């Protein structure tokens, strides 16, 4: 409760200072501060132009007809015209063509948004009624504040502790729902330093409107300085994850050298894992999360479905800690036997 009040106070203070610049003139679009801003605004301009053309043309025709063909005397009837095949064809084909161009362009932008590039800075975002908890790659935690460097591809891994939320940054023109039960991801590349609103954009209960904050886009140097400067607030997620790994007795089966009842987790993060049904899957955050909460969903080839579910026993943050720990094992040597990792020779 008190955290929220503090955040609110801070937010109001920022609002006031920001107000001076924004309210002076009535803007028609928010600031353009990410790689998506230009393409979304371009789409907006294109569709607005096409629609405005038709809206104005049709309205003008209606107004013209309305006055030109007004009834001259009470008994007058109109000229019986029942239709025209050429016109009907034209106004089916032309709008269809234009609609398809809108679809195509929109699809290009969307596919770009849904496919994050490889070299991203991964930041965890957890939504809960009614606040955002954010964890930087170093483990630095923030509440209702997100700091990112300019020019770097940033991927947000979104999780919810309760209901559906939505992380939205109008200045970046992006948003993604934060759905309990699985991870969603979104990415963007900030292009302009500054402070921008982010909002919860999926209605989530009483204080939905207060569930927002600020994205601070910083120059890379500043960002690095900020990360190291605020080290006192840093909880080391790898250490926390390692502790949890022992507490929950994960280490009794997932033995590092591959001799346990479960595969070694060395090098598994980001690798291809062979499954019992013959398929393979990339071990990303979502896969690890699913394997912790619902282990029966994907069984590693050569192993029995023994692992119990940890559904309801871990918070989203603890899952992220565990994931961070498993991630830290990425560079550890993969045992030749007793790992789910597909042999490097198997695929290119």
């Amino acid at each position: 409760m008190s955290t929220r009040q503090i955040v609110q106070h801070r937010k109001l203070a920022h609002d006031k200072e920001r107000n001076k610049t924004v309210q002076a003139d009535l803007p028609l679009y928010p600031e353009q501060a990410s790689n998506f801003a230009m393409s979304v605004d371009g789409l907006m301009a294109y569709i607005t132009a096409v629609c405005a053309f038709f809206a104005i043309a049709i309205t003008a025709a209606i107004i013209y007809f309305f006055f030109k063909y007004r009834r001259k005397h009470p008994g007058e009837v109109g000229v019986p015209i029942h239709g025209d095949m050429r016109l009907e064809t034209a106004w089916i084909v032309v709008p269809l063509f234009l609609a398809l161009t809108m679809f195509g362009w929109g699809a290009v932008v969307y596919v770009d948004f849904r496919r994050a590039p490889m070299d991203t800075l991964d930041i965890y975002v957890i939504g809960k009624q009614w606040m955002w908890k954010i964890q930087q790659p170093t483990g630095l935690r923030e509440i209702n504040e997100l700091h990112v460097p300019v020019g770097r591809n940033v991927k947000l891994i979104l999780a919810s502790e309760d209901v559906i939320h939505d992380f939205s940054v109008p200045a970046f023109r992006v948003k993604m729902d934060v759905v309990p039960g699985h991870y969603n991801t979104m990415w963007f590349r900030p292009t302009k330093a500054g402070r921008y609103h982010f909002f919860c954009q999926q209605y989530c209960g009483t204080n939905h409107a207060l569930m927002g904050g600020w994205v601070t886009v910083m120059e890379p140097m500043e960002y690095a300085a900020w990360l190291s400067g605020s080290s006192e607030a840093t909880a080391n997620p790898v250490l926390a994850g390692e502790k949890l790994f022992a507490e929950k007795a994960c280490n009794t089966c997932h033995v590092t050298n591959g001799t346990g009842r479960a595969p070694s987790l060395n090098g598994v993060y980001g690798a291809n894992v062979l499954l019992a049904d013959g398929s393979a899957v990339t071990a990303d955050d979502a896969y690890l999360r699913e394997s912790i909460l619902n282990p029966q969903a994907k069984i590693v080839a050569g192993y029995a479905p023994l692992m119990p579910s940890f559904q309801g026993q871990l918070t989203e943050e603890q899952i992220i800690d565990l994931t961070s720990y498993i991630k830290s094992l990425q560079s550890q040597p993969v045992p030749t036997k007793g790992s789910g990792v597909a042999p490097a020779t198997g695929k290119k």
Partner: protein
Amino acid sequence: MSATPAAVNQMPREHYLNATWGIRSWLLTTDHKRIALLYLASVTFFFFIGGAFATMIRIHLLSPKGLLVTPETYNKLFTMHGVAMIFFFLIPSIPAVLGNFLLPIMIGAKDLAFPKINLLSWYIYLVGGCFVLYSFSTGGLDTGWTFYTPLSSVYSNSAVTPAVLGVFINGFSSILTGLNFIVTVHTMRAPGMTWFRLPLFVWAQYATSIIFILGTPVIAITLLLAGLERVFHLGFFNPALGGDPILFQHLFWFYSHPAVYIMILPAMGVISEIIPTFARKPIFGYSFIAGSSIAIAVIGFFVWAHHMFVTGESTYAALTFSLLSYLVAIPSAVKVFNWTSTLYKGSISYDTPMLYALGFIGLFLIGGLTGLFLACLGLDIHLHDTYFVIAHFHYIMVGGAVMGYVGGLHYWWPKITGKLYPEFLARIAAITLFLGFNLTFFPQFILGYLGMPRRYASYPPEFQVLNVMSTAGASILALGYLLPMIYLTWSMRYGAIAGPNPWPGTGLEWRTPSPPPTENFDVTPEVTWEPYDYDNRPDLGLDVSGAPALAHGDD
């Protein structure tokens, strides 16, 4: 109208309103016209309730911090506004009031195919309405009208269960009405009333009925599942119980997107009646308008996941649903082009229903075109769940559906009551509505593009100017709604006597007295003319094209 010798209009001695007397004769009536009036009273009641909530919402949003109520209450206001307006006003409005009254008369039938089921559907509506009112008055409802899980099924502390039951029960009223309409259109058309002589209003009702029957069971079962999860903790949608919250959205929108067409298709039907009457010429492209109604009803079932582009649904699903959403826009465009072309070389009068019809085209145009923005995948990641969406669907549902409904009420008011409303006041009201509506909702498009999220009880101060504009517009809009309520009620007693065909219109409903007798027609009519065919209707007393010289001579 005015100078013709037979102009001394008289009310018929006996008609459906005075055929029997007493409260029982209304509550146990099986006359579709009386049932329509029962619906008129009840949907108007819910419109008032929903309108009161809307008024409070707009007053609250005058100030960035919220002027009127707590966030909790605000959330209840917009939820209850949505539930009352969508499920208990918009969906039943045109079908259950105007459709009920007119559909049998327009096809030359004595009543609907199942008159008792028709009455039953009104009672079911009432029972559903009582549940919802119970929810509103005992804790309210704060889930959003969309009832998204797990907020509704687990986390909300408001009266969700009775509300969900109320909407569930109300669904059966829609299903029965749809069934009744479909059977009636198939089996009870008068001799000579072929499918392609059907008034376009009937085509629209028929298309709507298809959606009623196919879609409503899905929302009914979906809300029931959410209720079961809430009460008995069965894991359908709650991930903690192994459910999937996104499944709810698929099921919900599978109905609720077509439900948008339930609201707009009948209004399109009304407009397709009004425009030929007041342009006094056949409608341009009859079969294209009729066919586009069916196309909308069918394609409308395959676009639901465009409400879910940012839920994390698969990219391929998003691509498919975006493409299909663009396809469903085409039949709507076809209608607009055909209505506009109907005006060409017409004999256009400025009567009130025509003002509503033209206002409808203008507002529906904006509502429909902004749908193209939201169907666009790349743009939707910015616009989704902002005020842009609010503005878009209010242009469709209020600018479209409500303008159609109020326009239709004016057009058929003389038929329903036998009386004329005061024309001058009515024109003022129509213009007030149009201007007030635009001032209310157009600023919200800009708010949305600036990023203001919907369902916010408070907002950053930079959004205030546009919110104040919107509230100013809403007060004009409210005036625009109050005026017709007053003068239409007034006219029931004091209005001038209308006569059977004041405009005149070409449909069968205008060939029976106003108000019609209980059996609608004294003799079963036989249809020998094409729809909206003013040229071959000497019975209307107009200067048909057979005498063009006369028309020129008058100039």
